[in-house]
């Protein structure tokens, strides 16, 4: 199976599912816990960081210092999540916010939990480059004449950059916007080296080079807003800011956070807040490769949307339509943001490309904005960055998309997968449809079924067929149109005609073939009804248990098949669940109506209309036009007939209000034929 969706989702095997059921309750509880710690890792709102192997160091903060740390949901938890994302992606993070938010404390608290060293430098006043990068000092260990007079001693930054086995280090650059320009320039050289994964050349130490690794060294810069009571701060040059993942926090604690935190301090409120699932990010165990990324369905489309978004977001900032009140100017960088978004998707793609992209844009774009109004403006644009599979007739949304074989450009690849699962004789895509009806399909819809569904379809003796509703001339693909077209075509090819042969019993009753059709499906259906376009999985025979049952009994068999075979151990799609519920609710009423028909109190047509209006019937039965279309295609391509001596109930009614049934493909039509129900599934 080549579908990246399937490959990446790593769907749980059936064997594993029973054990998963047992775990489910615990997992559900765990999923709502904002911080989950194991022996080797900690997840902050789903973003998992590995603990350092070596945690015994004076630079690692002590955990007991943070026992009363309050994990409020508005500031503390999202901040930890966003710091975790930066750590995971190896990105330098610049956080701007008021002093009361506890930025430094939060970083140190996380370091204490993870066993990371903290190398702290406050850049406010009187700090020089050598304090950070190191300098020569008199050798304090000089005992012998041959010992050097001076030795090079690391500064705060260089000590954080040096790699030591098993250690992970965080360099905190506090009050970053108070730093002297020469310090900023030097620090940005360090950032560039980290980004390249190369060496930092220490001009302070005869050009010694230090090999740096962003997996081992994390850099967090913190700063208070310019103005707003904070003196001595200058706005950073937006061009310098581009090196950082910039997170703008409020200048003061939000009122609700202040209230909750204060209550928590006094043990006067709840110990925890309700954490909503949308606050979580879920990091992958292993980042995707670029090759895997390129295979994600919808990537090309969503990239185009992202480009449009980036351009629009830049314009909003440039024209000061957002971030107008923010004293620190910034830009959305043409090179850095796309790279960050890509790296984020590599780390956080979990089967839904829309979700991965939109979360990335919230992280790298919306996080730079302070006001809720600005964030909402950008959020409107973010929501437009969405890939919509071209799925005809489907109302399914959200995570269900990830299980589908839905991809525009690689549809042929997915048809190959379907052929692999169902066999070539059971898959009828655009090529086959063109061969049968001469219709060239320009815009082939995506196959809305997962690989697992196809595998199950094979066991249910189903075929996959692409239906179109127009002929090559643009007329409705009615039974009449198909009959006229195929009878002539097949005659030329030496095949039988569509359903009613000349020696058919029905010609004893009706003058023409058209009249036979009209008798069985009604005039309107015969000339006007077209198949509902899109892909369908269609039974090649009726369901064995559906024989000799009334409309309700047949439907119950269909529902049982859906529950016990088609969707076994899977979530039933919403529209199917709704349809089943509707059926359960109306079953008694229809049964009563049926009884009244049997006793002559009510007309059959009333019952038929009730049945045909049921969503479950519309979702799982072929209409008359669809049935004709399906068996015709199968015969044309495989030269084999279906339903030669049997009939199936349909989702159409005859002119006199009876339920349509068809079959007798080249059969005589006389005598007794079994009638059952097929399962024809669309989405």
């Amino acid at each position, binding site marked *: 199976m080549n579908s990246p969706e399937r490959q990446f989702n790593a769907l749980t095997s059936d064997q594993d599912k029973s054990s998963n059921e047992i775990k489910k309750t615990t997992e559900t509880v765990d999923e709502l816990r904002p911080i989950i710690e194991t022996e080797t890792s900690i997840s902050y709102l789903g973003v998992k960081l590995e603990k350092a192997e070596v945690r015994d160091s004076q630079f690692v903060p*002590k955990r007991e210092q943070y026992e009363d740390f309050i994990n409020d949901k508005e500031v503390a938890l999202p901040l930890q999540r966003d710091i975790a994302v930066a750590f995971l992606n190896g990105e330098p993070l610049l956080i701007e916010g008021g*002093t009361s938010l*506890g930025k430094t*404390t939060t970083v*140190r608290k996380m370091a204490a939990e993870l066993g990371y060293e903290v190398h702290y430098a406050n850049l406010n*006043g009187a700090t020089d480059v050598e304090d950070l990068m190191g300098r020569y*000092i008199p050798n304090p260990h000089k005992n012998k004449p041959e010992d050097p007079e001076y030795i090079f*001693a690391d500064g*705060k930054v260089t000590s954080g950059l040096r790699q030591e086995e098993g250690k992970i280090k965080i360099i905190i650059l506090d009050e970053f916007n108070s730093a002297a320009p020469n310090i900023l320039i030097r620090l940005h050289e360090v950032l560039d080296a980290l980004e390249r994964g190369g060496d930092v050349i220490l001009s302070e130490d005869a050009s010694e080079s230090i090999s740096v690794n962003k997996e081992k060294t994390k850099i967090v810069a913190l700063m208070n807003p310019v103005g707003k009571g904070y003196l*001595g701060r200058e706005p950073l040059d937006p061009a310098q800011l581009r090196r950082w993942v910039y997170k703008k926090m409020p200048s003061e604690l939000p009122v609700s956070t202040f209230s909750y935190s204060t209550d928590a301090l006094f043990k006067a409120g709840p110990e925890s807040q309700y954490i909503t699932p949308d606050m979580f990010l879920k990091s992958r165990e292993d980042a995707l490769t670029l090759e895997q990324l390129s295979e994600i369905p919808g990537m090309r489309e969503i990239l185009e949307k992202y480009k449009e978004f980036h351009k629009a977001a830049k314009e909003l900032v440039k024209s000061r339509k957002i971030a107008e009140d923010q004293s620190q100017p910034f830009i959305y960088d043409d090179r850095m943001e796309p790279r960050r978004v890509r790296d984020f998707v590599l780390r956080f793609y979990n089967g839904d490309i829309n979700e991965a992209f939109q979360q990335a844009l919230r992280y790298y774009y919306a996080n730079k904005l302070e006001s809720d109004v600005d964030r909402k403006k950008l959020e409107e644009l973010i929501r437009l960055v969405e890939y919509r599979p071209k799925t005809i007739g489907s109302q399914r949304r959200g995570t269900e998309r990830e299980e589908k074989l839905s991809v525009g450009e690689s549809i042929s690849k997915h048809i190959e997968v379907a052929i692999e699962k169902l066999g070539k004789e059971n898959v009828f895509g655009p090529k086959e449809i063109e061969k049968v009806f001469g219709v060239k399909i320009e815009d082939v819809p995506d196959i809305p079924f997962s690989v697992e569904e196809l595998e199950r379809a094979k066991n249910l003796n189903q075929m996959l067929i692409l239906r179109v509703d127009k002929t090559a001339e643009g007329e409705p693909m009615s039974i009449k149109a198909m009959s006229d077209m195929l009878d002539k075509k097949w005659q030329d090819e030496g095949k039988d005609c569509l359903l009613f042969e000349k020696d058919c019993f029905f010609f004893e009753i009706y003058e023409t073939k058209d009249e036979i059709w009209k008798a069985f499906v009604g005039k309107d259906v015969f000339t006007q009804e077209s198949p509902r376009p899109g892909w369908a999985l269609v039974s090649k025979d009726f369901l064995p248990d559906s024989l000799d049952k009334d409309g309700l009994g047949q439907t119950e068999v269909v529902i049982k098949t859906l529950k016990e075979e088609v969707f076994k151990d899977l979530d039933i799609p919403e529209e199917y669940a709704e349809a089943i519920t509707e059926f359960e609710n109306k079953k008694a009423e229809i049964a009563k109506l049926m009884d009244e028909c049997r006793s002559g109190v009510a007309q059959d047509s009333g019952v038929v209309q009730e049945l045909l209006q049921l969503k479950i019937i519309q979702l799982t039965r072929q209409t008359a036009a669809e049935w004709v279309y399906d068996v015709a295609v199968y015969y044309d391509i495989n030269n084999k007939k279906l339903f030669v001596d049997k009939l199936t109930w349909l989702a159409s009614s005859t002119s006199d209000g009876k339920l349509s049934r068809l079959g007798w493909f080249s059969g005589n039509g006389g005598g007794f034929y079994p009638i059952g129900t097929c399962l024809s599934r669309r989405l």
Partner: protein
Amino acid sequence: MSKTNDKTSIEKFLSSLAGSKEVGLVIANNQIEYKKFAKILHDLGFHKSDNVTDILKVKKTYFTINQNTEKEVYDFVVQYPTGQIEIFDKKIMQSHIFSPNYKDSAVVLLVDQDHLNKLQAKGFNFLSASGPAYRS
């Protein structure tokens, strides 16, 4: 930053600092008041210190600050609430790292208004970095 305006309550203010996770700030209006406050601090058992690591040795400590105060005091005040303090000694290029023990501890900065203004102007925002403050 909270402010206590009861002029007679400096003793109460100082006693309330025990266990605080922030450094307290006592602001004198002039040098006469400054000396008066220093005496009260001393009488209440606060140990005057020039070295931030002294907070590990005694429970009640105060530092006097002025426009020439070393940056390390500011770094100390900023980091005090964060659970870990790293003070870098430029002479030997080494960090001293320690964790404050907040329980029953109290740390106070004593400054006069004039020097506080000068420090603030230099960018050392002691008013924001410190916690509870007392002004006569």
